[in-house]
């Protein structure tokens, strides 16, 4: 079998490579080129071809002067920090819980994983109803039995909205992340815990000195996934707040740039997309390098 793979590896990869080149690489390169032009969606301003409409760094300069871009950038960072922390704590907690459960393990895993199967935008509208009606009017409103101001009108305040979006995003992805953690936990040999118990380690010491270091590979994956997905989040942002009340994040900012001018300024939107790509790439690479260093070979 190994011989088979060795021989056919390159050929069998060709379809995937062709698809990658055609669907991702070529549009990406074109996109970078277009970000230097006066691209207006269905035409290039002042020319038939893109190279005739080059404007140099004008789009980029405009982006860095755009208050909307800067505020969405800051807001995106705020959300990412909150979301990464909450998602990790919740999914690791769920994994630890599910692992200990004896009966109905499969049931819990399915239930926790289930939200992950539902689509982002549609769920966003359902959550929008939950936050606006169930939370604000039925459960925690002024006339409700328990009045919790923080949970009322969460979508009408930028700080509360960070948590509203994080709650929804966590609910949706924690089940999936839980599976990764669960897999990591199952790979930790039991004898390590046994040995620690014999030496008299407490539960916290075991968690701190065995579970955490042994889980580092899972942490790397989960951090990478949560970091980039929070940074790129669009559906929840669009469905819950639509960017109102200063809650616009970068993806939505790029989307809305094409709708805020007539004819649409795709050149400027593309410049933002390129900056956005560089940001995500940098953050992800740094993060992978840092966590890789801490990984321990099991």
């Amino acid at each position: 079998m190994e011989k088979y793979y060795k021989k056919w590896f390159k050929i069998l990869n060709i379809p995937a490579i062709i698809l990658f080149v055609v669907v991702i690489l070529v549009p990406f390169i074109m996109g970078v080129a277009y970000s230097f032009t006066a691209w207006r969606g269905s035409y290039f301003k002042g020319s038939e071809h893109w190279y005739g409409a080059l404007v140099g760094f004008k789009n980029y300069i405009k982006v860095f002067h755009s208050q909307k871009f800067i505020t969405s950038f800051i807001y995106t960072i705020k959300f990412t920090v909150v979301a990464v922390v909450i998602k990790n704590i919740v999914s690791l907690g769920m994994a630890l819980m599910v692992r200990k459960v004896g009966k109905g393990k499969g049931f819990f895993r399915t239930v926790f994983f289930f939200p992950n199967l539902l689509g982002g935008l549609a769920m966003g509208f359902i959550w929008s109803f939950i936050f606006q009606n169930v939370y604000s009017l039925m459960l925690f409103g002024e006339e409700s039995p328990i009045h919790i101001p923080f949970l009322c009108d969460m979508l009408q305040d930028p700080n509360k909205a960070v948590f509203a979006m994080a709650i929804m995003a966590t609910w949706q992805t924690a089940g999936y992340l839980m599976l990764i953690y669960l897999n990591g936990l199952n790979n930790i040999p039991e004898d390590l815990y046994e040995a620690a118990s014999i030496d008299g380690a407490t539960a916290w010491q075991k968690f701190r000195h065995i579970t955490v270091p042994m889980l580092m590979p899972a942490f790397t994956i989960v951090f990478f996934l949560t970091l980039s997905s929070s940074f790129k989040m669009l559906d929840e942002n669009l469905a819950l707040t639509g960017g109102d009340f200063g809650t616009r994040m970068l993806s939505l900012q790029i989307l809305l740039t094409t709708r805020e001018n007539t004819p649409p300024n795709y050149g400027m939107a593309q410049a933002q997309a390129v900056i956005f790509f560089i940001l995500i790439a940098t953050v992800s690479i740094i993060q992978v390098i840092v966590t890789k260093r801490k990984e321990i070979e099991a």
Partner: protein
Amino acid sequence: MKRSIKALGVCLLAGAAAVTVTGCGKVNKDYDVYFFNQKSEIADSLNDLADEYEAQTGKKVKVFTVGTTEGSETMRSELKSKEYPTLFSSNAISFEEWKSAGYAAGVEEISNPELKTLYESVPDALKLQFESEGNYGIPYNIEGYGLIADRQMLEDILGVTDLNAFTADYKEADYEEFQQMIVALNDYINDGKSESFTLNGNSYETQSDKTDLTENLNGVFSIAGAEKWTYGNHFGNYPISTVYQNIYDVRESDPDKADFMKSSIVKSLQELDFLSNYAAGPDGATKRGSQFINSTVTGYDQAVQTFAEGKAVFIKNGNWIYSNVADIAPEVADRLIMLPMKLNFSDDDIHVDGLTVDQMNRSVPEFVSQYYIINKKATEQEKKDAEDFLLWLNTSETGQDYIVNKFAFVPFNADEDTTLENPLSNDLITYKRDNDLLANPFDAAPSSWGLESYGKYIMEDLFTDPDPWSEDELNDIADECISYWKSGMDEW
């Protein structure tokens, strides 16, 4: 074994190659006209119409419909594909893109003389012009908005059987009288006692008890506070109209002309401050605050429902709500009337030649939602087929029947004889006949002005604030709106 693996590899390669090169081959078009429509309400009837056209002429029309929000994106890629639409639609706002990209055929390129005459018969105010030149499209229809009421409701409140005297006086009334009327109506809703007010100098009195219909009232207006566009785009048109006559005026004027809008923007906000105190909700009055913009309470559908169920006297909206109201209360839908919105402006605020506050207070804004445009880049034969279809649609008996009865459109060339099922559309025809029209210069505003500036401030800062809005705050908002407008205009 080896052979079959090789064969598999070749198949995969061929498959991948096929994926990459699809779309480069020559396409066989199995239609004569491809019409890209952006008004989803008429999608079904349009397909029937296409069948009918094929039966009559033997020419096949392919119709493709995408609703307005995603329409531009889809049409952009369709226009660039091999199977491009030969006839497409656009509103006045997005038109510049299609024009600049070279897709819009002007009247001078129309070869069919009858269709040419039809293009030229479009009134100037409705023409799809561009910097006062060109004539690029045939209007789908005319739409308009104002203050909508249930005729029976008003008759019950006033205890009259004929509303004509009231509507005539209402049209002539000024803003102060309007305010008086709103307060009187509100008092009547709250205590059911007789209240008096004057309109155009004539006095009116509400009944001293409630009827089955008026008993349900929770407030005077149904306001969709959660929908920025209802006030951002439509209410915003009133202050714009005090400075700009029509969309061409906006495009051709110096951006600094926007400074003149300041006093009318402030006054329009003060008017909203007044109106929003009398808002009805599904259960009882709706107070300004976080609930006022909660889309589960004051979303568009909820607002229309509140009105249709007789819980509010008025709703500021357009003739398109007929079908929404008809779904909820068919008997109310047939009794709808459209009144002009009363505006808090004085003649000093108006910078349009010949326009007065009295005229504005009598008028409703009417505009063309979409135009039919012939694709300039289509082949001669395709253009000819598209022209024939467009002419047939707008002049043949079948086409006219579809426009009025199936699409439920007010045709741009409607006359007194045109009657529709929708009473609001019939009212629009009356306003048009009496020349009591405002244009819709909002259509030429920077495209996010309504939602990201004027409407956004109203929703985020004003409607959430239960206290009276201070003049300083309103002045600041007006300044922000104007600077947003100017920076948007730089993009042109």
